[in-house]
């Protein structure tokens, strides 16, 4: 079923930051998704030319609606269209949700360390949402590496959760611009900051890392070097040519 192209209708579009938008899609016959899965979106030009890109599902609901959050790459082919041009009421084609590896299930009992670079937050947010909606008590910790506070996705929701949820801790790294009152200058994520911030290896966390390929490679490498078992680390690479961010 996940290999079939299906028609999805755009039911909502809400800016998530200056360059991104969360898009709600209604997919007839869809029966939810697992936290961490992605869909493929196919756009067709009027001469039949098509482009396909993957987008993580931001919500892990059990109904016919799913949400994605797309970050615009100014020189990209598909993301500017999805962020700027696509309108509520439009239709497009989707395949999925797919993926059974980079997923979190409410029955998983381990503590969880999530590490996001930029738009890599999307599948991790669906895990956080599924975790919050579940009775699962195991602690979650999120490390979110961002260019600037304004670039953050789900800002209000994460703020509220980090204040109110007893089972979620959120840490930020700002690479270009820090929020007012932040101690220290913007800086890239380093191995030291990473290891000082994530759950210790002794806690045996399941680790999910998501972001641009370079970010994922670098972070996963540091963790393996520091003694986290490679088998505990799951990664999702968003491709693209972008470096660390």
């Amino acid at each position, binding site marked *: 079923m996940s290999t079939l*192209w299906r*028609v999805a209708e755009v039911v909502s579009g809400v800016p998530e930051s200056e360059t991104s938008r969360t898009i709600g899609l209604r997919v007839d016959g869809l029966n939810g998704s697992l936290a961490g899965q992605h869909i*493929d979106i*196919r*756009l*067709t*030009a*009027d001469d*039949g*030319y*098509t*482009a*396909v*890109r*993957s987008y993580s599902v931001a919500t892990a609901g059990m109904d016919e609606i799913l949400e994605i959050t797309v970050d615009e790459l100014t020189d990209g*082919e598909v993301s500017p*269209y999805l962020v700027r*041009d*696509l309108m509520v009421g*439009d*239709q*497009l*084609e989707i395949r999925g949700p*797919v993926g059974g*590896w980079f997923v979190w299930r409410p029955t998983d009992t381990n503590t969880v360390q999530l590490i996001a670079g930029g738009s890599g937050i999307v599948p991790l947010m669906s895990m956080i949402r599924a975790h919050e909606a579940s009775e699962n008590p195991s602690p979650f910790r999120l490390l979110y590496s961002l260019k600037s506070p304004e670039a953050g996705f789900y800002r209000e929701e994460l703020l509220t959760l980090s204040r109110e949820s007893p089972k979620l801790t959120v840490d930020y790294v700002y690479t270009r611009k820090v929020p007012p009152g932040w101690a220290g200058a913007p800086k890239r994520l380093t191995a030291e900051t990473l290891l000082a911030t994530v759950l210790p290896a002794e806690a045996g966390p399941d680790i999910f890392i998501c972001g641009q390929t370079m970010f994922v490679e670098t972070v996963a490498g540091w963790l393996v070097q520091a003694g986290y078992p490679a088998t505990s680390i799951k*990664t999702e*690479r968003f*491709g693209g040519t972008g470096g660390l961010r």
Partner: protein
Amino acid sequence: MGIISSGFHGKRRTGNAAIPPGQHETGTFPVLTAGPAPYVARADWEFFITTEAGQRHAWSWDAFMALPQVDIRTDIHCVTSWSKLGTSWRGVSLDTLFEDVETASEFTTAHSYGGYTTNVPLRDLLGGKAWVAWEFDGEPLERAHGGPARLLVPHLYLWKSAKWINGIELMREDIPGFWESNGYHMHGDPWREERYS
């Protein structure tokens, strides 16, 4: 044709919709192998299919060459991000090799001389999608590229197209092969960038 997205024109930057996302075109034929290339003489070469019930079908080089041979023109895509368009091959369709094979399995493991393995779902081998190829560009397949014969499953990343192919084992379960045990994807569809697990 699918649903038209009005206002979407696409960039067609590569000028070629045949190139999957994250890939670039190459004119050469890079060689990527984990270890030294095994040497297998045609006289010693054999291709087998074993079923989950333990039945074994096998072809010597001569028996294999007596099967219907087809020419294949196809694009190939390596997970290290190169794609080579319009390559030409000659070989035997897996449909031919599976004609007398009775199986209920959905999964297979391809075995190579030298010990390499890779898992490929049976549906990705049948239906005109895969071949055992022994000729490239009109010449016998070079040893570096898998000669005497290699699997050719061009719609998946090239690590699925096992070089120095020895046989296909039908499996009750999907068991990861060499690269799949090392972080690579169980399926490997370039159009979905199924690169890593």
